[in-house]
Structures are given as C-alpha cells and as structure tokens.
C-alpha cells in the first residue's frame, strides 16, 4: 500500500508538472512564464523548465527521504536511534553527483546566453531612453522620435482614491499613448539608456530585460515572429511612479509597418511645420493641457499645486508668472540637483510653447502667451 501511495503522489506531481509546462495558461492564477513571441524567449522558457524540473526531481528525493524518516524513525513508533555519524563515501558521492548535475545545466545555459548576447547583423535599431516616468523611443535610421507614457485613462484611474474600478479597464497599467511599433521577422537592435536614474526595459514576451543606465548605453536584440501586441513595464525601481511606466510593443507585418513609418514621418514634418506659424491662445491652451497631463502633472499635479517638500507648485510660482526667459530656461534645460528634467530633447517647439502657455495661464496665473518660434529661438 505504501507503493500505491507513492505512485499516486508521483502522478499528481507529474500532472502538475505537465500542466505547468504546457503553453498559454489562464491569465488569472497564471502559474508559469510564457513561451513568448521570439526564438529567444522560447529558448529561455525551455531552459527555465529544464532547471525547474531538475530541481523538482532533487526535491522529490530529498523531501521523500525526510518524510519517510519522519514517519518511520520516530520514538513514538519505538524506533531506537542508530549512532552512525559519518561516511566519507557518502560525502564524496553527494559532492560529485551535484557537480555533474550542475555542469549539465551550465551547458545549455551557456549556449542560450551566447546567442542572446550576439547583436550583430541587425536590420534596424531603436534607441530606448528611460525617463522618470516614461519611455522615449528614437528610430535612428527612420528619423522617428516619440515619448510613450502611461495612457491618460489609466493614469487617472490609478490615483489614490480615484474612485475608478480598475478592473473595468482593459490591460490596466499596461496601456500607453504611443506604442513601439516594429516589423515582424526582422532582427531589431535595441540601444538602451536613461536620462536620470536607472530604469529597466522589460517585455516578457521578448525574453529579456536590460537596465537603462544614465550615461551608458546597453545593447540587446529581438526578432519577433508573429504580429501582435506585447506588453511589459519598467523593472528597476526608479522613484515614485516606477509602477506606472508601461511598455507596449506592437509587431506588424511589413506592409503595415511601412505604412506606420510613413505616417509617423509625416506627423513629424507637420509638427516641425506647425512650429513656423502663429498659434491662437485657444490652440495653445488646448494642446498645452494635453502635454501638461502627459508630462508635468505627475510631479506638479493637475491642480498645479505640486507636492510640498518634493515638487514645487506652479500656481502663483515666480517661474510661471515671471519673465518668459526664466520659464523657458527651466523647461528646456531642467534644474540641476533636482528631479526637474530637461525637456529640450523630449518635446518639440510646438509642444513646449503650448505647455508653457498653459502653465502661464492656469490656476489663476495670467502671464501671457509663448509661441513656438520663441521656443525655437531660445534653444
């Protein structure tokens, strides 16, 4: 009957192991890593499962021996203690056998690592910059550049006491205003860096994460096999909104990707052109409100009141109501020694003019309008 008990236990473990090993599981109560969307992520998944199953096997042996001993070798059962207390043979055996097992793990691990580190012969390059608390993407060859922030709807819902039921938002906290669009089947090289503190760029379905370190550039690569939407988020503590910096990668087939690239390039041209004309106050305020919400409100708050002791108020502030020159300088170049970043490379002239105008005309401020041309001149 002992044999039957043991067999049943083993088959239960086996079933669990197999169900863990199978592909997509329920989104909720998910038990395991996914195989992902790239050859790399599949290799990593296989490696993960191999090590895991070896650990399970060793665990079964060790815990099995312990449980057997706990049941059989107890005083209440009349067991009399043996007195053996050493065995050189045993010590050698359970030193050598684990070494052999470890070497057998190290071989596939080394192979996988070497493959992942090889960024040569890529088809395109995207520079990723981590910023408190958003990502900036630059497609170096295509001349596309944009910031990707947490979607405004999610951002509103995640505020303390927002009153919003977050379960009603699809992919809550993993939606962005502008996703990273990439073509399938191409080797994409990622150059990863940061502007301020250490962040980490992680999309689980690509199979890796890489730290974004200010002043240094890390390299990685991915080739996505199937079109789809792949979501991730920042994976290195970077301050108060570390949990609110998602990443959305949209992989499209070649034709759709080409369309997207063309559209983005046209948008960029239009934005450049829009800086050459005069904007009306209404236009500036409307656009400025959007830019403010996406870039400034995290610290300076929607109310313009900031957080005392941490982020200064803009309502009634000397900068936002004083000379335009000072306001431009602060926004373009940031404030050294504080969390105020330099926005000269993050926003274009029209965006900057709009947000500065918005700040100078909200919350009781009434300090005039700033045109994109003025921003261009101040650079």
């Amino acid at each position, binding site marked *: 009957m002992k044999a039957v008990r043991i067999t049943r236990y083993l088959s239960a473990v086996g079933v669990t192991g197999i169900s863990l090993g199978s592909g997509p599981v329920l989104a909720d109560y998910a038990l395991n890593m996914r195989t992902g969307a790239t050859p790399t992520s599949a290799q990593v998944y296989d490696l993960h499962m191999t090590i*895991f199953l070896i650990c399970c096997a060793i665990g079964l042996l060790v815990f099995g021996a312990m449980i057997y*001993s*706990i049941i059989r070798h107890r005083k209440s059962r009349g067991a009399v203690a043996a007195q053996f207390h050493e065995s050189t043979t*045993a010590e050698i055996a359970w030193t050598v056998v684990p070494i052999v097992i*470890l070497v057998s793990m190290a071989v596939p691990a080394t192979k996988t690592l070497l493959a992942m580190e090889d960024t040569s012969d890529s088809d395109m390059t995207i520079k990723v910059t981590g910023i408190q608390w958003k990502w900036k993407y630059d497609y170096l060859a295509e001349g596309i550049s944009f910031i990707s922030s947490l979607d405004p709807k999610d951002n509103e819902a995640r505020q303390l006491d927002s009153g919003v039921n977050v379960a009603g938002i699809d992919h809550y906290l993993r939606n962005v205003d502008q996703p990273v669009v990439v073509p399938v089947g191409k080797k994409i090289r990622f150059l990863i860096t940061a502007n301020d503190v250490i962040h*980490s760029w992680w999309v689980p379905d690509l199979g890796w*994460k*890489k730290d974004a370190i200010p002043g240094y550039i890390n390299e990685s690569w991915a080739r996505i096999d199937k079109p789809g939407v792949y979501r991730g988020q920042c994976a290195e503590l*970077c301050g108060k909104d570390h949990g609110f910096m998602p990443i959305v990668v949209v992989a499209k087939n070649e034709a759709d990707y080409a369309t997207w690239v063309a559209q983005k390039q046209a948008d960029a041209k239009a934005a450049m052109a829009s800086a050459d004309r005069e904007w009306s106050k209404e236009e500036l305020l409307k656009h400025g409100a959007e830019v403010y919400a996406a870039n400034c409100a995290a610290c300076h708050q929607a109310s313009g009141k900031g957080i005392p002791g941490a982020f200064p108020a803009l309502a009634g502030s000397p900068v936002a109501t004083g000379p335009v020159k000072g306001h431009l300088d602060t926004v373009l170049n940031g404030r050294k020694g504080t969390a105020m970043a330099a926005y000269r490379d993050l926003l274009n002239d029209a965006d900057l003019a709009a947000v500065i105008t918005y700040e100078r005309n909200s919350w009781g401020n009434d300090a005039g309008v700033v045109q994109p041309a003025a921003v261009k001149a101040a650079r």
Partner: protein
Amino acid sequence: MSTATATATHDEHHEHGPAKGLMRWITTTNHKDIGTLYLLTALVMFFIGGAMAMVIRAELFQPGLQLVEPEFFNSMTTVHALVMIFGAVMPAFTGLANWLIPMMIGAPDMALPRMNNWSFWILPFAFTLLLSTFFMQGGGPAAGWTIYPPLSLQMGDGFPFMIFSIHLMGISSIMGSINVIVTILNMRAPTMTLMKMPLFCWTWLITAYLLIATMPVLAGAVTMLLTDKFAGTSFFNAAGGGDPVMYQHIFWFFGHPEVYILILPAFGVVSSIVPTFARKPLFGYSSMVYATASIAFLSFIVWAHHMFTVGLPTVGELFFMYATMMIAVPTGVKVFNWVSTMWKGSMTFETPMLFAIGFIFMFTIGGFSGLMLAIAPADFQYHDTYFVVAHFHYVLVTGAVYSIMAATYYWLPKWTGHMYNEKLGKLHFWLSTISVNVLFFPQHFLGLAGMPRRIPDYSVQFADWNMISSIGGFVFGLSQLLFAYLVIKTIRGGEQATDRVWEGAHGLEWTLPSPPPYHSFTEAPVVK
C-alpha cells in the same frame, strides 16, 4: 588610602550579582544580559518591520491604489528590509552568539565585555536615526534597501541620517564580530579543540570573519553616496566621469556575503537542534565545517549575480553564473547531512524540532529558486520580479527567522528556567507554516507571470495571487503575536526546567543549571 587599608578592603570580596533596575541594563557587561538585550530588541524590531510588511500587503491586496501614496509605499518596502535585516535578524543572531558561545565553549564571558556593551547600545541609536527620517522633509528612504544611485541621491532631508544610521549598524556588527572571534579562538575550555566545538560556534566564527571583511565595504559604498550628494564627487555620476554600476559592484560585494551572514548562524542552530531531537549525533561534523567554510569563501566571488541585467561583459556573466551555481554543492552537502542525522534516529517533534525541520524543507525550496536564479539567461526574466522576492523570503523567513524561533524555543528553558507552553508553541508553528506558504509561494507565480518588484499597484492579471498572498501575510503577522506572548510568558514563569531540558541534548550549556548563574564557568570545565 594606605596600601594596608586597600588590601583589607579588597579581601572583603563581596558576591556581586547584577545591579538593580535600569542601570543594570545600561551598564551591563555580562554576556547573558547583553544577549537578552539583543534578542528583545530584535523581537521589537521584528514587529516594526512586520508592521511595514502589513502596509505593503494591505496596499497590494487589490489592484488600484487604496491606502498609501506610491512614494510612501516605496519607503515601506525600503525600511521593511533595512529593519528586518539589520534590526531583527542580525541582532537576534548576535544575541544568540552572546548567550550561547561562552556557555558552549566553557568560558566565563565574552573576551571583550565592555566593547560588548557598546556593540549593543549603538543599535537603539542607529534605529532611532533611521526611523526618524520618516518625520523629515522628503520622508524616509524610498530607493530600496539597496539604495542604488542616482535614485537614492534624490532622497530628501533624511539622507545623511540614513547613511549615519547604516554606519552605526556596521560599527556595531564589526565590534560584535571581533568579540566572537577573540572569544572562540582564545577562551575555549582547555580540552576543546576547534574540531570538537559545537557547530554553532563554527558557524558564528566564520560569520564573524565575513562581517569584518564586508561591513567596511558597505561603509565605503554609503560614504561615496554621501560625498556624491554633498561634496561634489562623481563616483556614481556618468556626467562627472563616474558610473552608477560601480555602486552596485561595491554594494553587492558586501551584499552577497551579507546574505550568508544572515544564514550561517541559522545552519549552526539547526545543527544543534536536529541531533538533540533525533537522539543521534550530527552526521558528518567535519564535512559540515568544511561546507560552511566553502560557502563563506564562495560568497565573495558571486556578487554580480545580482547584476545580470546591467550589461556585464559576456565572460563576466558566465563566470558569475558558474560560481553561483557552485554554491549549491556545499549547501546541498549540509542538507544531506541534516537528513542523514534524522535518518534512523529516534525522533520526537517538540516545537524546536518542528521549526528546525520546517527550516530544512523550506530553506531547500528557497535554495531551488536560488539555483534557478543563478542561470543568467533565465534570470533576465526573473530579475527584479516577485520570483526574486519569493526566493529571498523563503531563505530569510522560513530560513533565518525560523531558525531564530527554533533557537528561542530550544534554549528559552535554559535561559529562563521555565518551560514554555508546548501546545501553544506547536500552534504557533502550524499557524506560521501554513500562512507563510500562502504568503510567499504564490509570489513565485507572480514573478513568472511578469509582475515586477517594488510597485504599489499592478495589472489586473496579477490580482488573484496578490490577494491570496496578502491573506497569508495578515495571518502570518497575527500569528507572531502568539510568539511574543509565549516568550514574555515564559520569561515570567512556567514549569521549572531541568538542567538538561531535552532528553537528547548534548553540550556544555546543558550541564549548567536552568537558569544558569549570572557568572558561569568561572572555572574551566573538562571536556571529554
């Protein structure tokens, strides 16, 4: 004032027991008193750190932000870890060292009793400084217990106080370690060779060397943070020619041996308890010594496995992966030796044994997830996720903390002369064990599913396991109140304990009365 009078007064040698009242505890140089101070302080800090964990689990109970602002949440995760590591586990092990090492080796006290007093009394100041930062502009530290720059340099007014607090903790540990080494090497009973002394003393001897080697490195790292912030240096600022990653190298050169500092004494405790309740000698004593020494040596060459994603050169990643995997060998040797100690013993399962066996089971689970983490390409998916959180809580809570609880139940009758209530002890064990697994096992799943660490809010697909984990957390937290109650009750009274207390107990401390006299082994005992 004449010599004759001085001699006469000296001959009236009075029996001095401890001083009375508060001054006893402030001025004591007695290893038993200082051990008690460390242990009770650790218990208080355990609840303070535990309260912060309850805030964390309460916020994570559901998706969305319900209770605290993100920055405060970050300070909870940061200070929870600092308090648990430096305020609970390390002082508790130092308390055990103080109480037990002199008694185990037949010495009258620690080698440097006055330095011993200072080693303890630095700690309340250190933690007052650390916790006071919550009341300063900018709040408490919120960059993680690892305080990586540049983020940690964005901290508010509390920053220098946090640095100073860490310096104080380090000084306390270094002084305590000097005391342990000098005591063990010089004050063993004449016939007790090193290879005859209890394994607990070996593990603390090795731990003390680790502490002396690494605490100064931490001190260096945090001092560099201080000068980067206030003195215009650029150690960790690329614009000034420095490198944020250099901090991580320096920190983890301390940090990795630190985690072995947190576990080696635990190995010593378990190696004391299992033989007693199996009524069988520890299997493979000399292998256990060599394994402990191997683990300590290896702990110095694996630090960058905490940094696999920073962009190390490939050869570096490979080296650190192989070295880290190697630690599984001596660790496995220890587990096999414990199981062999149990094997063909005559076991009973009083509370200390329950905690010791629980340690062996669950520390091993933590060891398996550690081995998975060692595999660098797989670690790219695990790093900075709840998979890591699950790993280290298994080795630290069901590992280190369980060993401290096992030690408390095991030696409390010796220290106080009273038996604790065995039924309540077992209840504490079972409540804790069931709830701790409900708390931490699902965190493996969360990490694998893609949930990062140190976030106050999360995507809805993580909600179910988070809710379950939080429920486990609340039950585990409440269960520890039972432990505090038991400890205090037993100190105050209970069934009188015998000298030997446990039928299978061996060692010099069990030859003393329960409780032992204020000064024990004033004459060196003979060890066979």
